[in-house]
């Protein structure tokens, strides 16, 4: 059954004010187009969950969409800090921002508990750290078999997850390669899943390589075909990270007026990702293109 729709309709149907939202992807395949659509539709009071908030959450926070950030590392990867995140966390501008803080391992374990319908996930994490004192969803648990102990985290189950992949069929079975991050468990843990891809493919392509499938149609509510939907982050085999955009954001975001101007130009001023990509221009896209390098094929065998 086709679930193909536009990002506009997927966000309008899938995301409500007050929702907890996980835009997935660890540095790779970050759902920038979805984030911009959430800003355009002026969603409010969102709990933004994500291991690495990255530029996209900084933009959502700057646009006034967020009431809370649940995270484990809030920075501009390879560049520095997130100015809008800091302004909200330190000074409540433009809104107060509640923080729920984990380590990467802790947040991923919590998401895995959510995906697994478990009341907690154990990890040897947070040991010797001051973090557990500041988060009630982290607790110490004794081993029932010896005098060992672990920390446990409570499950995280977002209302909505937006996940990206290189290709999927129209019903939402998706192949993802390169860095997998937390994409799978974010999709599994969430109630509603919006899947956005670089390419649509046939069901036969998916079925030719079932070990490559990261998300299956049962878990997907909306499928969006959004080429370059992760710019300025990247899609393995399709385009690289646009580092200029990461460096620029550090400057823009330090100044609320420049942030407004940037949002006007690149978010409110375009209707959808296609317009955004047109605005980027061919030159910039070509600079991001890798050479081809295909994986050595495998033979699944046709059995009678």
């Amino acid at each position, binding site marked *: 059954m086709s679930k193909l729709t536009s990002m506009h309709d997927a966000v309008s149907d899938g995301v409500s004010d007050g929702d907890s939202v996980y835009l997935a992807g*660890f*540095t*790779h395949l970050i759902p920038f187009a979805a984030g911009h659509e959430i800003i355009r539709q002026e969603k409010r009071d969102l709990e933004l969950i994500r*291991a*690495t908030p990255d530029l996209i959450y900084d933009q959502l926070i700057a646009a006034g969409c967020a009431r809370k950030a649940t*995270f*484990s*590392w*809030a*920075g501009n*990867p*390879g560049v520095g*800090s*997130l100015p809008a*995140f*800091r302004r909200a*966390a*330190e000074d409540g501008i433009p809104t107060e921002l509640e923080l729920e*803080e*984990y*380590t*990467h*391992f802790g947040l*991923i*374990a919590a998401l*895995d508990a959510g995906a697994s319908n478990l009341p907690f996930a154990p*990890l*040897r*994490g*947070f*040991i*010797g*750290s*001051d*973090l557990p004192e*500041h988060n009630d969803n982290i607790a110490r648990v004794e081993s029932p078999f010896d005098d*060992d*102990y672990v920390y446990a985290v409570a499950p995280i189950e977002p209302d909505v997850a937006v996940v990206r992949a290189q290709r999927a069929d129209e019903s939402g079975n998706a192949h993802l390669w*390169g*860095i*997998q*991050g*937390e*994409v*799978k*468990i974010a999709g599994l843990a969430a109630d509603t899943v919006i899947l956005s891809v670089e390419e649509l493919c046939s069901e036969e392509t998916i079925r030719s390589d079932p070990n490559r499938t990261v998300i299956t149609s049962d878990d997907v509510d909306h499928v969006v075909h959004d080429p370059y939907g992760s710019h300025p982050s*990247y899609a*393995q085999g399709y385009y*690289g*990270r646009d*580092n200029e955009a*990461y460096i620029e954001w550090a400057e823009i975001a330090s100044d609320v007026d420049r942030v407004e101007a940037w949002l006007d130009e690149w978010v409110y001023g375009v209707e959808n990702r296609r317009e955004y990509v047109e605005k980027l221009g061919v030159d910039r896209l070509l600079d991001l293109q*890798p050479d081809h*390098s295909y994986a050595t094929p495998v033979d699944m065998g046709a059995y009678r």
Partner: protein
Amino acid sequence: MNYTKSELMVVAAARELENDDSVLVGIGKPNLACNVAKRTHAPDLQMVYESGTIGSNPSSPPLSIGDPVLASGAVSIEPMRNNFNYQLQAGRLDVGFLGGAQIDKNGNINSTVIGDYDDPDVRLPGSGGACEIACHVGRTLMITPHSARRFPEEVDFITSPGYVDGREGRKELGLSGGPEAVITDLAVCRFDERGEMYVAALHPNATREEVRAETGWEIEFADDLETTPEPKEEELRLIREDLDPDEMYTDQAE
């Protein structure tokens, strides 16, 4: 030979790595240090990144720990859950690089807040993978500028445990391993049997006075205080020509 402090720090860090190590690499200088080591004395160095890439062999300096150059040509890529459980927690990684705004006398690291947690003077990025790297690798390394602000006697917030309140304190928590070396722009510091940081080697031209002035407690110096060996020609060539030609992470000497 001419070289900059950045180059010296990278090379000093590279020399901390052994041939059979598996290392959890960070971005910037740690990445350069690992690549220098791999191309000189440690060809079998296994480079693992927080993003789950194992056996990466980057063709250019990664812009982030999730850069596509770390994925293309890697030996394996793990989802984050697997990487944390099977690689890090299971003790498969020998060395990890950490960074932070503050490091204290016992090697505890703060990358969370300056000031009070609930009303911070400066909100820092947070742990990311650091806390559990500090818990589970055999040896942690830091590369950081030397300044009194960065080296308080006690950190405002323990994000990642070093020796906690001493080597015994760390052991009581069930943790082995711990901080191995802190490489600054003045010195190479190590940790004594109590788990306290001391200066093991001064960089060429650096003085005890400079180190004392830039450290937030009365730091001790080794009886057999050494001088950090200078970078070799081949190491500098690797950094300047192959690994960081654009001087993204090193301000290179002429």
